């Protein structure tokens, strides 16, 4: 069953008088609970596509359907709600909130919503945050601020934060680009483990071929078009 569907998606950027055609009519579907890699060289449109799936950018043409909802029909408020409910983000530069410690950073998205709508009690919420902290291996770093953490540790916090609202999809744009390769691999494997444990759909972009191989569905882009789209079966 497809959780994400892109239908002839086009994205043009206006750059002064010229128009950059970043994505040129891309269509594909992604299944729930898959671990997907969007691969391709620099400038091929990976980030642009992830942004549109993440509802933080809108297509010039075509449609992006998340959980059966056509995002073209939604305004800023509804898109923000959709992001909050259905999507988690892991950023290349980690993007932790500097004034919050590890625990608070992870808890932060929960505080943006009514607890009722989250359907959990205060105690359950605390347990859940602690579980995620344990899952990403930062139990001893709960009270530390992001500037006291290494890059790998920061990205672990970001992973836990992306999962805290129990989204169905987690998007990660080059999550390993700012990490050394061995740390990068550890991070991807951690994501893979959570993907298996929680059944969350993970979509990450990368141009690191060794990381691509961990994915079970690869969409390879070239110059704004899908060059390759294949699933791997173990």
């Amino acid at each position, binding site marked *: 069953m497809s959780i994400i569907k892109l239908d002839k998606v086009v994205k043009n950027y206006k750059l002064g008088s010229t128009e950059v055609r970043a994505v040129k009519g891309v269509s594909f579907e992604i299944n729930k609970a898959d671990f997907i890699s969007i691969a391709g060289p620099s400038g091929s449109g990976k980030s642009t596509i992830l942004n549109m799936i993440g509802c933080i950018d809108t297509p010039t043409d075509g449609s992006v359907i998340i959980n059966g909802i056509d995002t073209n029909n939604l305004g800023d408020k509804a898109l923000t709600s959709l992001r909050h409910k259905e999507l988690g983000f892991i950023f290349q530069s980690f*993007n932790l909130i500097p004034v919050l410690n590890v625990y608070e950073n992870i808890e932060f998205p929960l505080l943006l919503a009514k607890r009722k709508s989250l359907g959990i009690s205060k105690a359950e919420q605390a347990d859940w945050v602690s579980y995620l902290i344990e899952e990403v291996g930062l139990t001893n770093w709960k009270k530390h601020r992001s500037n006291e953490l290494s890059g790998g540790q920061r990205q672990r916090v970001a992973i836990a934060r992306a999962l805290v609202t129990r989204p169905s999809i987690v998007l990660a744009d080059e999550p390993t680009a700012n990490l050394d390769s061995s740390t990068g691999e550890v991070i991807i494997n951690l994501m893979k483990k959570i993907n298996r444990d929680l059944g969350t759909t993970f979509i990450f972009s990368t141009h690191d071929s060794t990381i691509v191989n961990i994915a079970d569905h690869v969409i390879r882009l070239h110059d704004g078009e899908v060059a390759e789209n294949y699933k791997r079966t173990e």
Partner: protein
Amino acid sequence: MKLNFSNYFRSRKILISLALRNLRQHRSKSLIIASIMSISVYVLIVGLTTINTIESGINKAFIDYFTGDVFIRANADYKYSLLGIQSPGGLEDNPVLPEYTKIFNYIEAHPSVKSATPYITGAARLSFENQGKEGQRGGSFLIGIDGATYYDSFESKIVEGTGILPDQRGVVLSKSNRAEIQDYLDVEINIGDPVTLYGFGNGGFAIRTVPLVGVFEFVQGKKEKNYLGFIDGDTFKDLKGLYYVNEPLNISEDKIDLLDVDLSDDAFIDDFFSDDVADAQNTLDSELNLEIERELEDSSIVFDQIWEFLVIHLDDPRFARGFIRDVNKWLDEQGIDASAGDWKAAAYPMSTMADAIRIIFMIVVGIVFCIAVMIVINTLVVSVLERTPEIGTMRALGAQKSFVKRLFNYEIFFLSLFSGLTGLILAFLTIFIIRLCKIESTNGLTFVLYSGNYLNPIASFSSIFGPFITIMIAGFVANIYPLHLASGVAPVVAMREK
């Protein structure tokens, strides 16, 4: 939609915590804004308090010593007060109050009135005869009073001799004025010494010699400088020639001719102040007066009725405004061409000194304030721009625009609150210390400006909370544009951070 208070407090808790931590995180910018804001509050409070103190001092001094709470004067198409004509040309004399007796009787019977007394005011030259040297002095500002009622209205402040008794002719000079004259003439001037006064009014020049009956001092024991004098009303009426005012008098041609000729001759005026001529003029004047008085007996004017102002003290000065309204209504009904005004109008333009200071202060503060707001806006904009990726991240994670707005509003709220309180506390300390220091007034002027023997700043509710509320509002106003920028940050910028 159901209200969910627990959620409201939940998001408020994280907002407050985030706001406070952000202020600390960006402490250099917070400090810039906080110092600008707290200095503004401090300067405003201390400035307004100082002005209030001066204003209440001037207010009290004028009301207590000179103007009373309310005064009544004739209507005129030029501006004048107890201090004289205020128009640039300023050549006209104060008009005479019409139907004085009727007004006085009405006012005296009014239940709100504590006391009332009439005035004639104006300048005159003083001269002390037979005392070597030239024997002359410059002008003095004289208040012609009614000895029968004046001292019921105003404290006498006499330090030597007496006040002006009813039906007595005489002059009371201020201590400083007498001291200066003594210094200048190098003589001693004692009670009982003759003072010759030269006036210029409706009838032309007039000269009167009356005794010095007393010396006064407004603020006893303090040095004060003024050229004030009190004179009995009748002598002042002579000097100002007030008989000529209301009705045409039938005075023999030759006497009037004589006066007219004298006046048109400038050369004569120079000689005029020599003692010989003064004596001659005195005789002339008394002849003239006799004739005038004879005429007056025939005419409807009663000599006692001629006054320029009626000065009134109320039982409760707070009701002055309503009292003035009542009196003006009555004057209108009676068809009397006169009107009542407050002490500010009575002592115009000197009474507006505090207003002038306040206006200048407000203009300066206004300009500085605008610059300060610009700096604050600029600092806030820079802060928003710096935090753009962070805002984008929060938006990407599901924070609504309203959340971002509330966060930035909380930040400016706490910053303004903190700065406002800091300025307020510092201002309070300053005022408190000034009070503790008991800065003593050394002269009459500072006695007035300090509102008493010691500098005693009066911190009013509005002079404290006005600046405080102003800074809170200014904070929100300064935040409008930065807030607009912040809530406009697109979530996609979270991705661009490298």
